[in-house]
């Protein structure tokens, strides 16, 4: 019945709406709108939902010349690689989790600190300039970022050439398997730390000034204002983003790592996504790599939903609010 009012608004006819229209009537009335949406719906179906069905090859022995439908079923054989602990798979999983963990510890706090720092700046002009500079790397592709790092920090790069000439310490972070995690973490910081401040700056800018004034009236200086007003104001955002990050632990920068696997080798750099690529598309083991991809996707979805649930438990909105949005 709730639809009556809506129908009323969208209804070209002038006759008063006494009864809800039938499905067919509504279809005829909305046919132009539906036609507009059709290309989008078809693309979503074809490129988002059809590949979902394609995951059946995780349960098949996929042979390219037979096609998906004709290839024989093999039950859960392809998943054995996960449950039997294939060394390459375990290595990829371990690397993924370590990199995720390192990035949560070292990358996550930096935008918060940077936002507080930028927020405390004296001059509005300087603040805007700093923002413009620090946001820029976010828009660069990973190929550009990796290229920049190689040519700046590589053995023959800008920094090391300068350091050798001036008897300064050299940095040999490129191509060293032991330092691979440090390298990719610093790249993530360089690219996205500035960008990450936006959400915190937005949260700070929404704080009611009277709160700051109250602290000042009570004799509290800048530190107390920070502790009692600014930090509590951004706490919900921090918790929310942290939880979301935890929901994403199985996904670490794919293009970034893929680009740099050559010099450091797979032992140090293989993560789940590159494992699926190397095993499936390079190696031709379609079934098993699809199985790994499928499990990763499922666990990832469960983690994101779980994280969202936890966010709700913390009293936050989470990403998928509720039916209200529809």
């Amino acid at each position, binding site marked *: 019945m709730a639809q009556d009012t809506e129908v009323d608004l969208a209804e070209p006819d002038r006759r008063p709406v006494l009864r809800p229209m039938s499905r067919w009537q509504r279809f005829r009335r909305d046919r132009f709108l539906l036609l507009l949406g059709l290309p*989008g719906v078809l693309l979503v179906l074809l490129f988002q939902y059809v590949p979902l*069905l394609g995951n059946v090859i995780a349960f098949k022995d996929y042979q390219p010349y037979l096609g998906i439908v004709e290839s024989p079923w093999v039950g859960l054989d392809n998943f054995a690689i996960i449950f039997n602990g294939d060394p390459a798979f375990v290595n990829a999983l371990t690397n993924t989790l370590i990199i995720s963990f390192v990035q949560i510890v070292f990358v996550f706090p930096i935008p918060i600190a940077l936002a507080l720092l930028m927020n405390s700046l004296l001059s509005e002009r300087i603040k805007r300039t700093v923002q413009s500079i620090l946001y820029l790397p976010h*828009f660069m*592709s990973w190929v550009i970022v990796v*290229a920049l790092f190689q040519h700046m920090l590589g053995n023959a790069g800008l920094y090391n050439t300068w350091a050798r000439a001036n008897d300064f310490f050299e940095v040999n972070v490129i191509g060293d398997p032991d330092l691979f995690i440090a390298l990719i973490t610093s790249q993530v910081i360089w690219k996205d730390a500035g960008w990450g401040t*936006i*959400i915190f700056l937005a949260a700070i800018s929404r704080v009611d000034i009277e709160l700051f*004034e109250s602290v000042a009236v009570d004799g509290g200086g800048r530190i107390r204002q920070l502790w009692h007003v600014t930090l509590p104001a951004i706490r919900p955002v921090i918790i929310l983003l942290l939880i979301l990050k935890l929901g994403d632990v199985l996904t670490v920068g794919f293009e970034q790592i893929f680009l740099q696997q050559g010099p450091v080798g797979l032992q140090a750099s293989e993560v789940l996504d590159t494992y*699926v690529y190397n095993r499936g598309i390079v190696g031709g083991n379609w079934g098993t790599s699809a199985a790994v991809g499928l499990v990763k996707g499922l666990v990832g979805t469960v983690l994101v939903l779980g994280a969202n649930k936890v966010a709700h438990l913390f009293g936050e909105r989470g990403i998928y609010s509720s039916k209200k949005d529809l």
Partner: protein
Amino acid sequence: MADLTTTTTPGPDTPTPSSGGGNRRGRRSGAPAKLLPGVSRQKRLQAINGAKPPNPVVRGVKGIVLFLCCAVVIIPFLAVISTSLADQAQISAAGGYVLWPDNPSFYAYEAIFRGGVVTRATLVSIGITLVGSGLSVTVVALLAYSLSRPGTWGHKPILLLVLFTMLFNAGMIPNYLLIRQLGLIDSYWALILPTLTSAFQIIIMRAFFLETPKEIVEAARIDGASELRILVSIMLPLSKAAIAVIALFNAVTYWNAFFNAVLYINSTEKWPLQLVLRTYVVDNTAIGVDLPGDVVPPQQSLQMAILVVSLVPICLVYPFLQKHFAKGVVIGAVKG
């Protein structure tokens, strides 16, 4: 959600000249000013600690930290541009890279744009970016518009169909097999079609259409406008800004897209710029150029010139992006 999306654009509105020593300044003046109407948020924040100037040591440390942050971002770009313009003598003297070209020349650019692999890749990238962003903003805006009238036929199922895609990703292997099944391997369409729709953008765009007052549409209808007329003459002009922003963002995405080309493009002559960049600048494959009768520019200059070519379009649209992105990020952080 509305409160987050409508009040938090740290855009370049109301720049207030700064003076004296408050320590914390908001970027907006539109915040509630209950006690002191007419006094901006910024002025009030300045006034709070106005009597006590901040500690000079603290200020110094802050300044140094932020200066270093900015230097770390700027120096690579500066070095890249300078090296691409520098000549062989200076590059050899500096050992590879220079921070400022003594005799700037465009030899390197002339060399790469003489019709070789870089020229072709640049054209391919431009084509894919233009076609991709144009098509995607069209499809997204139309679908968002058709979803912007709750109560239409199939509204809820279609909206759920779109929203649901935010929750999962089918995975690389099935996507690859689909493209192969469609016969799109080694076709430019493989780089354009799969990323044409984005649930996130559809939702943002739809929210934008929903905010448009219904009265305008009703008035047009009373004047006898058809649905097509309402869309073309009323909704599109009203949402020009939003459409432009989405188109720009998609343009950046298409320009930067790299991995889809690795997966789907086999022939070298169809490579987009990012693949060329990977091969010649990341993997350091030697670049062969034929410059009849000329001196071949130093390898570093050529590499850096390719890098600059891939940077420039983004830097060109960056001011426009920066004006608008904050809103999108804030919605994005809340919506996923």
